């Protein structure tokens, strides 16, 4: 991690020859864009698309990769994060792929990116108009743990029959006193479609609501795309007497002192000692720089 060239930020370069721009052929990209347009027209509704096998495995973000590949242009600046960090292995690998097949500029700075692909987190820096935010989605169907049959789940969506989901949440309250869902916390979109926010922690759910950026969701293995156009109403399911809430930590970030970010618990020795640091590495480093001009990071 001490290499002099930051692998996460680079200017535009020439893509490697032998591939079409962004790997997929233009017909495939067109078909994916059609699915995206449908998805934008019906916020939160899952649109089937003819997902292709990519040179990375299903489960590694192939849905997000195909969505990104279909909307990316030469002028874009790409940011890729996994678990909130720009330097996790899979983020590095996806960024490396797009550098290879598109030659686009990459960045770590959330506000400098025109296109951001993510797994499991929404950055702490607010997204803005004009940005496209692409989620990698493992299980697009929010009802799957209640109704594993896609045929039945589709019917439930069509009839807006979401009672069983509320029953499940209510059962949690009777059993545990609160809703016991830490991530994959279901949301209602535009007062109509129940949607799986992808496995972001519930901490990030409120960031989806009325977000100025275009949010696209790609599930490669499950072959579904869905979307939240800018300024869409997104409400985390709750009850009047048990309103939705997000978790808080008892300590600030060890590196930057933030008290309002999602913290990551890092085990630092075999005596069970831990420290808590921001999961959003870009946000944390920028705060540190503003405070002291230097940055601490893991690894």
């Amino acid at each position: 991690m001490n290499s002099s060239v930051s692998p996460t930020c680079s200017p535009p370069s020439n893509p490697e020859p032998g591939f079409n721009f962004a790997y997929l052929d233009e017909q495939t990209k067109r078909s994916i864009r059609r699915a995206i347009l449908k998805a934008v027209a019906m916020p939160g509704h899952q649109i089937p698309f003819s997902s292709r096998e990519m040179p990375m495995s299903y489960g590694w973000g192939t849905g997000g990769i195909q969505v990104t590949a279909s909307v990316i242009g030469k002028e874009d600046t790409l940011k890729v994060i996994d678990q909130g960090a720009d330097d996790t292995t899979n983020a590095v690998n996806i960024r490396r792929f797009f550098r290879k097949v598109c030659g686009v500029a990459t960045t770590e700075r959330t506000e400098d990116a025109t296109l951001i692909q993510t797994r499991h987190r929404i950055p702490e820096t607010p997204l803005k108009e004009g940005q496209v935010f692409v989620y990698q989605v493992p299980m697009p169907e929010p009802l799957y743990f209640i109704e594993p049959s896609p045929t039945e789940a589709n019917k439930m969506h069509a009839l807006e029959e979401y009672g069983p989901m509320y029953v499940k949440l209510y059962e949690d309250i009777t059993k545990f006193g609160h809703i016991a869902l830490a991530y994959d916390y279901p949301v209602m979109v535009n007062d109509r479609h129940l949607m799986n926010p992808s496995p972001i922690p519930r901490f990030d759910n409120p960031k989806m609501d009325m977000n100025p950026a275009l949010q696209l969701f790609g599930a490669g293995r499950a072959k579904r795309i869905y979307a939240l156009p800018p300024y869409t109403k997104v409400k985390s399911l709750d009850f009047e007497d048990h309103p939705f809430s997000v978790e808080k930590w008892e300590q600030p970030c060890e590196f930057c002192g933030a008290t309002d970010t999602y913290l990551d618990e890092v085990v630092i020795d075999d005596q069970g000692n831990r420290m808590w640091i921001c999961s959003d590495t870009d946000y944390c480093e920028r705060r540190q720089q503003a405070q002291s001009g230097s940055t601490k990071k893991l690894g």
Partner: protein
Amino acid sequence: MPYVAVKGGEHAIRNAEALLKARRRGDINVPELSLEQIKQQMQLAVNRVMAEGSLYDPDLAALAIKQSWGDLVEAAFLLRAYRTTLPRLYYSQPLNTSTMVIQRRISAIFKDAPGGQKLGPTFDYIHRLLDFKLAAEDNTFSAPASNKSDPQETTLRVANTLAQEGLVMSPGTVGNGVRTNDEQSGIESITHSTEPSDITRQSLTTPTNRDARLQNLTRGDEGFLLSMAYSTQRGYGKNHPFAGEVRMGGVEVVICPEELGFEISIADIVVTEVQMVNQFKGSKEIPPQFTQGYGLTFGYNERKAMAMALVDRALQSKDLGEPLDGPAQDEEFVLYHSDNIEAQGFVQHLKLPHYIDFQAELNLVRKLRSDYEQTQKRANLPVPNKNDTASSLEEAATA
């Protein structure tokens, strides 16, 4: 002892790749495998990779096997990823397997069948004794002389014999697909009122039709289909099958480009075709008769083709009004779990970092735990000591 966070830069990824390549090559004093060797001497592996990779190209399949260090699922994945980059120019005409240049053909339901039975190259009656002489190299084996089959010859399907008596249900009787008679070969072939579906161009949605099911099965994982088929034999959706016919050999692939207006042959490929015959007691609408399960795979892939035929038949249960009591009869269960490229990815993606979700889960479990302890205390019930749990874990580890 300090811990290091599991993050890997580009450097680590490159090193992993270099290490993989070196390990794959093995001892450099041992000659490197050639693609021709793989293609010639590991033909069944090549066939499996072509079938599950959904691309008929023995050269590329051999390359994929070499590149994947002999991991056949990984090799099929390589072919699939390559397949993504290929344009879809034409759809072929339906294969006419009755004009197959037959290398092997057997029927279990008649002692003899018009066209004859031919064992061909099969493990069926080989004593599975390790052949230690094979361990030495430079063995030569000569193929026994056989009557060269006439490539123009048409070998009717065994099921046709039953069809003449009206005792076997022709495909398309239930479900979708309309049958028409093919005058020349005397067999029936499927014509669709609509174009056959292509699950690689339009994602599978359920409930679906038999054409999509068959396409899914022929690309599906051999092991999965084998177990599903086996489960029907053991009573989970029982329907006793007979191997009506198993045939393997070369067939022509024909396209009919619109701009030409006539058919041209573009390839000869080897396929394995299986027709299973199963009893059907009949329903209100349909008289008692035999039904069929169909299996077709690229290459010589008999175990898979047979398994596919059993599963195809099991999946017809719904259309036939049979009771659905086995997983192999459940269309969604079978079709959504048959693809090993999808399955291997989702199972193995658990290796990717999940520490954000885990953090959320950790917070939740801690909260649930403290709620639990407070409840226990209020009720004056014992609260398990943290150290007890830890020491019992230690005991378990040393046991």
